[in-house]
């Protein structure tokens, strides 16, 4: 034992020197080009929040057009300038660009980079008991590639021809031909460049997350003792590594079609009566490649949110998560299934109906693991000593959206029903609830829950409640009516419906949706104030404000570089020992050995305690 202790001391000292060095680093190495996972996580969070704000404002702009088609928006002239027509309406080309950029920004920049980037970076080393990521340098590169990609996407918003406008799915030939719409010019080129950099960033991040989770766990942290957050981030990264290269391939061929004259996606096209030289391409090929990423991407967005929610619901119900192994299994199931359902986005592309029914079957199977997860969330809440912290409310909100949005997935996943519902507002309602709002709520829950660890201060609960209720009600008011508009057949991405007699009956509903959207966006400023003000003025956080069991709460209030000033704690138990019968406290952290909690141990846990009797025989403990 003695030798081991000495060894640990040496390690600690070495580490301290290391930490020392970093504290004396200058502003640039500490806060800008930092290799510390906590700083990088905050960089991702702040960039993601900036993007969320931009994406939200864009959505309100096009909701103004949809809700108030007759309104004169010339008061927006100072911001939108030439994008308003002479009679004060949003230019139709710009409307398409708004929709496209809203989708791109929200899916990739906010809910992929902002969510995974923030919480994978922040929580993986802290919860598995590691000093930092496997490669701090790669981690830093990952952020800066994302930053560069962000800058390019942001610049494209200010082009005179506008940003990309072919929808976030950028289907060719629309996106491939600059002659087609103004947005397919330079805007599309910048979109592709930006996304290529984004893919590099995402791959660098994912490689790091997986490597860290597998190789850098602390002593005792077996896979069955991992918090569900880490399982979720781990599987998300695996999906990312397997699917983002496919988007890269799709984008690469599109770049060649756009800039070098190849015909991967183009064939038999006439523009203004003139035939293009491109022969032999297939636009459906792009859809296959795109959705092979596109569908797993949905789970890249959702799984981290589900992981965060598992953790928060268990902590704030003061109960072990119900069905830990079922939770891991269902996430694994979702991850695997996500790769074999992509064609359900393409039911109406002239696909073989038999193939359609195969993809229907595979798609509907996803309902099983999803239902398992919802069941487990509800059973975890069942008879718990629930504490309604803002994080808990947002987590419960996620479960609600995941359910209401998931149920409509059963309709859309059916190749026959999809003929009616395809590309209508029903689809918009479905994915905004199940993936958009659910993931956004997961992200918010994560921010409220780990804010004390990130900034060492507490956020205001009352403002958190206000933010939650406004957003929760707002989201349902925005997306619930869309189901009806969609079932009536109103197609998404249309600039205006007032010319069609059939749809003019939905003017009031659309107005309601738009007002709710504006209110929901306004509610986010409550959060922004709460967030920014309490970074500086919040009351200092206690070491373990939520009485949680995971390792990050064993670090100092503001962990330095290396996370633990001394030795990394050893893990003895799973992360969900809440309200264990017999225990004095209603939680037992992961680093507490079973030998210290004899009153609450289960028989198989007692078996793990070995008695060190020195020279004495086994009989010695009986006296």
């Amino acid at each position, binding site marked *: 034992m003695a030798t081991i202790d000495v060894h640990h001391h040496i390690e600690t000292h070495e580490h301290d020197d290391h930490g020392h060095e970093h504290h004396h680093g200058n502003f640039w190495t500490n806060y800008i080009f930092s290799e510390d996972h906590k700083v990088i996580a905050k960089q991702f969070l702040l960039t993601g929040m900036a993007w969320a704000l931009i994406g939200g404002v864009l959505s309100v702009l096009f909701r103004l057009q949809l809700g108030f088609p007759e309104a004169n928006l010339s008061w927006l002239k100072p911001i939108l300038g030439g994008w308003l027509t002479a009679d004060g309406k949003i230019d139709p080309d710009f409307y398409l660009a708004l929709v496209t950029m809203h989708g791109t920004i929200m899916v990739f920049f906010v809910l992929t980079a902002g969510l995974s980037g923030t919480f994978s970076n922040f929580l993986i080393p802290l919860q598995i008991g590691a000093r930092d990521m*496997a*490669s701090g340098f*790669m981690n830093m590169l990952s952020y800066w590639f994302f930053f560069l990609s962000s800058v390019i996407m942001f610049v494209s918003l200010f082009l005179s021809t506008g940003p990309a406008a072919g929808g976030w799915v950028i289907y060719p030939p629309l996106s491939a031909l600059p002659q087609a719409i103004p947005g397919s010019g330079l805007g599309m080129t910048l979109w592709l460049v930006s996304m290529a950099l984004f893919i590099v960033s995402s*791959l660098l991040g*994912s*490689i790091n997350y*997986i*490597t*860290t989770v*597998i*190789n*850098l*766990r*602390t*002593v*005792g*942290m*077996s896979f069955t003792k991992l918090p569900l957050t880490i399982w979720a981030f781990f599987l998300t990264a695996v999906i990312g*590594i*397997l699917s*983002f*290269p*496919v988007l*890269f*391939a*799709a984008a*690469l*061929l599109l770049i*060649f079609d756009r800039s*070098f*004259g*190849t*015909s*991967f996606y183009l*064939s038999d096209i006439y523009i203004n009566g003139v035939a293009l030289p491109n*022969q*032999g*391409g*297939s636009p459906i*090929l792009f859809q*296959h*490649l795109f959705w*092979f990423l596109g569908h797993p991407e949905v789970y890249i967005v959702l799984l981290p949110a589900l992981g965060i929610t598992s953790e928060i619901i268990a902590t704030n119900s003061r109960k072990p998560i119900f069905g830990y192994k079922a939770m891991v299994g269902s996430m694994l199931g979702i991850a695997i299934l996500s790769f074999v359902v992509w064609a359900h986005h393409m039911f109406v592309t002239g696909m073989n109906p038999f193939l359609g029914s195969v993809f229907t079957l595979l798609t509907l199977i996803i309902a099983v693991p999803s239902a398992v997860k919802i069941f487990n969330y509800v059973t975890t809440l069942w008879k718990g000593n629930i504490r309604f912290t803002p994080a808990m409310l947002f987590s419960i909100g996620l479960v609600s959206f995941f359910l209401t949005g998931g149920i409509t997935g059963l309709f859309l996943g059916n190749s026959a029903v999809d003929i009616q519902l395809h590309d209508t507002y029903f689809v918009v309602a479905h994915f905004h609830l199940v993936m958009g709002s659910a993931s956004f709520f997961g992200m918010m829950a994560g921010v409220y829950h780990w804010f004390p660890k990130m900034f060492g201060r507490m956020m205001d609960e009352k403002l958190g409640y206000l933010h939650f209720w406004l957003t929760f009600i707002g989201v349902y008011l925005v997306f619930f009516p869309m189901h009806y508009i969609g079932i009536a057949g109103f197609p998404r991405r249309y600039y205006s419906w007032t010319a069609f007699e059939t749809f003019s009956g939905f003017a009031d509903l659309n107005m309601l949706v738009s007002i709710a959207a504006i209110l929901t966006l306004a509610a986010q400023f409550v959060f922004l104030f709460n967030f920014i003000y309490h970074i500086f003025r919040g009351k200092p956080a206690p070491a373990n404000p939520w009485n949680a069991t995971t390792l990050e709460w064993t670090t100092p209030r503001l962990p330095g570089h290396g996370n633990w000033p001394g030795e990394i704690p050893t*893990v*003895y138990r799973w992360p969900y020992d809440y309200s264990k019968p017999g225990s004095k406290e209603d939680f037992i952290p992961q680093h507490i*050995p*079973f*030998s210290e909690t*004899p*009153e609450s*141990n289960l028989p198989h846990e*007692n078996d*793990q*305690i*070995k*008695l*060190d*009797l*020195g020279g004495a025989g086994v009989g010695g*403990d009986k006296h």
Partner: protein
Amino acid sequence: MNEAVDFKIVEAPAKPISMNPKKFGMWLFIASVMMLFMSLTSAYIVRQAEGNWLYFELPTLFLISCGVIIASSVSMQLGFWAAKKDQFSKIKTYVAITTVLGFTFLVLQYLGWKDMVSNSVYLVGNPSGSFIYILTGLHGLHIVSAIVYLLIVLNSASKLKISSSNMTQMEMCTTYWHFLGLLWLYLFVFLTLLR
């Protein structure tokens, strides 16, 4: 239970199995490169099934480049074994040979492209030709990255930084090089069979 508390108690949680994170990261990188080529070759299959497909012979030079890439893998492996036995001068020789063979491979690929051009198969035209330029070009770019890596290894070999006790860099480079060799063999077989 209370009896047990009187004694010194030891719980020995197991240390999780782990490997060198850098090597592990290299395997993950290889997985993502594989997905890139898998998606392109499946795109090739999907596109070919739709008809309107131009048939032409693959340049025979591609067969020769298969030989070169296999030879380079052999020399890389010999270099790896030399490093394990601390034969410092041999490491340099074999890595240098691998680098030269890598360059030769790139030249052969380029000549193969010229062959295709003289056969009137261009990048711009029927996708059956474009796909070959993209696949070989993208593979070539990865070879370029591996050659840069070989030069880094060569540099550390000449500074005697590679030895049986310090194999990480050598091992990663060898893995990457073998992978790219196998990748080319896969592409060649694929393109030969699916004309």
